[in-house]
């Protein structure tokens, strides 16, 4: 667990208000909420893990240069054989020594760990398993309609990945999608396969458009499933890609900024038994562009 210290700027005061139902709150979670900039915070929650350390390093440096303030390293787990081990995440300090600064902000990039379980049977995903503990985000990729329904309504995950490499074998129904929106689970569309191949591009756009029709553009995140540094794209380019997928302008920008932050808040329910949000009580005019001001953080969708 990497705990970061709270950064408090001297020029402003923040008032923390705790909801009555809560007891303990982890410091890492409070840092997460308290350190938002007034500028939009872009996140890329899907960067594929590979064992080559130099490649990971250049990936993270490129992401910081493009302006992403948070990156999540994705370990894809596909249980084919019985009793296959869930991979354990490499600690961030081993992966990259000094975290690079985000372009345009004054804080270093945050790197999180994420696990994606590719489900082809219901037994593949075991809820509350202890191996999932070291990961900050949990995702699941269902391949059949029943599994999709189960994942939306029952499974204790944060992200549901939409297949982009082949035609969807099932149609999306409104009921499970609305159920997952109520729970705070988001759907993820990744675009790196669209950059590689023409048929993949068509499948990506087809599946994404189907999803947008059913979910009306809410609770969607766009992320790269990048394996190399050249497969990342800047945040404004991704917002434009969202227009191609059928999202409106505001929904498309939300897909890279505030929905991602909502996912992180939803994921922090494991470490925090309560929710804390910060309110701006006093704001002074800041001359220096490097200073950060904390806006009122969005309340997560499930309390």
């Amino acid at each position: 667990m990497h705990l970061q210290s709270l950064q408090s700027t001297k020029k402003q005061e923040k008032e923390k208000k705790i909801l009555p139902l809560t007891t303990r709150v982890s410091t890492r979670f409070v840092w997460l909420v308290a350190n938002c900039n007034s500028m939009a915070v872009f996140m890329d929650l899907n960067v594929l893990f590979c064992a080559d350390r130099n490649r990971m390093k250049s990936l993270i440096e490129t992401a910081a240069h493009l302006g992403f303030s948070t990156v999540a390293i994705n370990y894809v787990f596909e249980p084919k054989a019985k009793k296959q081990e869930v991979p354990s995440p490499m600690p961030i300090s081993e992966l990259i020594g000094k975290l690079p600064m985000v372009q345009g902000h004054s804080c270093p990039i945050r790197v999180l760990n994420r696990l994606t379980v590719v489900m082809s049977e219901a037994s593949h995903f075991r809820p509350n398993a202890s191996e999932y503990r070291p990961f900050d985000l949990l995702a699941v990729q269902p391949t059949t309609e029943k599994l999709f329904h189960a994942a939306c309504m029952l499974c204790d995950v944060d992200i549901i990945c939409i297949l982009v490499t082949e035609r969807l074998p099932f149609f999306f129904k409104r009921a499970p999608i609305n159920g997952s929106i109520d729970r705070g689970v988001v759907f993820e569309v990744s675009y790196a396969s669209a950059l590689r191949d023409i048929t993949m591009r068509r499948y990506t756009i087809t599946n994404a458009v189907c999803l947008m029709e059913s979910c009306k553009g809410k609770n969607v995140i766009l992320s790269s499933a990048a394996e190399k540094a050249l497969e990342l794209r800047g945040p404004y380019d991704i917002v434009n890609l969202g227009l191609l997928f059928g999202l409106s302008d505001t929904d498309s920008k939300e897909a890279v900024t505030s929905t991602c932050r909502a996912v992180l808040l939803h994921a922090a329910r494991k470490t925090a038994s309560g929710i804390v949000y910060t309110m701006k009580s006093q704001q002074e005019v800041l001359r220096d562009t490097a200073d950060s001001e904390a806006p009122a953080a969005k309340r997560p969708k499930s309390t």
Partner: protein
Amino acid sequence: MVRVKSRYLLCEINVSDRSNLLKLDDRAVAGAVRAAVARIHGDYGAALCSVRFCVKYLNAHTGTVFLRFPKGCYKLLWSALPFITSIESRGQIIPCFFNCLHVGGTMRTCQKFLIRYNTQQLHQMLPKCKNEEEKRQIREAILSCTLTGRNDETFEDELMSEEDGE
């Protein structure tokens, strides 16, 4: 007031190997953009590209490029830019990607943004300097906002003359 409006897109070309940047020229970049738009949006996109699209400026040392699009369809043409994975120039294929930094209505606003962006970059480069001489040079450059040895001064002159003729 009848005025033909365009959108100027300030992009940065990222390559994995910096020495490849110098091989770029504006015709290669224009060809790559046209090909990508034709691939993604078909004949309609290719036709839109011939209206008022051109590469206004390319700085091969930093990889900055100004593209001009007509105002009515710039979003459509912009959405094809992420799909560019390589540029072919002088017979060589350079793998790269475009990163859009700023969209402006005139070249002057884009230029102002670029100056601010470059000062930020220089600020970030300052801690990484190896010796005092480079640090002093960079500090002076930030304070005066020009750099010797790069063609940023000629860049500003070019911009001033081009936006008058726009």
